[in-house]
């Protein structure tokens, strides 16, 4: 049986680990709530933008609307990978990296071999992983999480759109964790560029809108906005998923530490009892020996 002091030390260390995981769980829960609020707050913007785009698109042919909607033969691909800056979030980051690796190994295998697939990392975990492969690494935007705002995300989207327009990439995908609830995240691979034109829903009644300056102009202006919103949504989703995943992981870790503590306490008490029994035996034996004299 392990000696008493050893077990006592292990109990202390497991205890402090449990306190850390418990604190992290609570912090993640608070951050998760804030992240969820942000998603709820951006949702009206996204849905209204889509609605207006659909209204405009009803009577105008959007298929030829500018360079961002144009489908070109795919020679160069950019994959934007959204991970987190910090670890200890269960399989959150490894799921994303695995999904990207799968894309590289299957769908874009030949392009990847020619070095025509680039990875833009958002989050330190992805940049740490992909920066070891300079052939496909296109840089990172880890600083975005310091102050998560639309303006920052919009700047990244603009940069990517400019590269797309200049023909540096023919297809842009974004890989992120979609937030379902605190325990469930889905890895999503979404095409960001070229955009899929909004399908005009026939069921809606057509309103006689005045368009200023013109329908085409409005569509041209709204499409980049919708691309930015798509990326922003992906990053917000990823952010909420990160905290959700961390909360679940830390909650499990706390439970596991609890189980471990229970076992250790049992072990400790057994050892303590054995020691006491041993002492009593010694005393009794000593007393016996004295009596015999």
């Amino acid at each position, binding site marked *: 049986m392990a000696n008493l002091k050893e077990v006592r030390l292990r109990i202390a260390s497991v205890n402090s680990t449990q306190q850390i995981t418990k604190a992290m769980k609570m912090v993640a829960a608070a951050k998760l709530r804030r992240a969820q609020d942000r998603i709820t707050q951006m949702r*009206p913007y996204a849905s209204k933008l889509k609605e207006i785009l659909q209204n405009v698109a009803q009577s105008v042919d959007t298929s030829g609307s500018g360079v961002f909607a144009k489908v070109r033969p795919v020679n160069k691909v950019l994959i934007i990978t959204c991970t987190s800056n910090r670890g200890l979030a269960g399989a959150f980051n490894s799921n994303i990296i695995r999904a990207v690796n799968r894309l590289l190994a299957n769908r874009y295998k030949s392009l990847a071999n020619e070095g025509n697939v680039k990875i833009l990392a958002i989050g330190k975990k992805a940049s740490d992983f992909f920066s070891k492969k300079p052939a496909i690494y296109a840089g990172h935007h880890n600083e975005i999480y310091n102050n998560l705002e*639309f303006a920052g995300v919009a700047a990244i989207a603009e940069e990517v759109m400019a590269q797309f327009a200049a023909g540096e990439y023919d297809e842009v995908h974004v890989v992120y964790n979609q937030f379902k609830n605190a325990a469930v995240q889905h890895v999503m691979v979404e095409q960001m560029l070229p955009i899929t034109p909004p399908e005009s829903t026939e069921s809606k009644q057509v309103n006689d809108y*005045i368009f200023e*300056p013109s329908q085409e*102009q409005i569509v041209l202006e709204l499409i980049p*906005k919708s691309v930015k919103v798509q990326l922003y949504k992906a990053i917000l989703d990823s952010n909420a998923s990160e905290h959700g995943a961390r909360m679940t992981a830390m909650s499990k870790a706390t439970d596991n530490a609890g189980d471990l503590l229970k076992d250790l306490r049992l072990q400790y008490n057994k050892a303590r009892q054995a020691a006491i029994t041993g002492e009593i035996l010694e005393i009794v034996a000593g007393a016996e020996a004295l009596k015999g004299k």
Partner: protein
Amino acid sequence: MYLEIITPDKKVFAGEVSSVHVPGTSGQFQVLNNHAPIISTLINGKVKVKTGEGVQMFDVKGGVVEVLKNKVILLAESA
């Protein structure tokens, strides 16, 4: 009429207004009650909102405004 000013980060304004001035791409214009349906893009500028209590100003950076049946929705990238 009802006005909503929405940015991706938050809802900046929502409520009943009597008039709203917006910096349209092809010129400033004012929206009053029973304005005809219009969709217009916006340039950077000031949005002037007149409510029962007074006048409120918002700085917007680009965006789009939709007016339909006394409901004005203004989507701005920042306000």
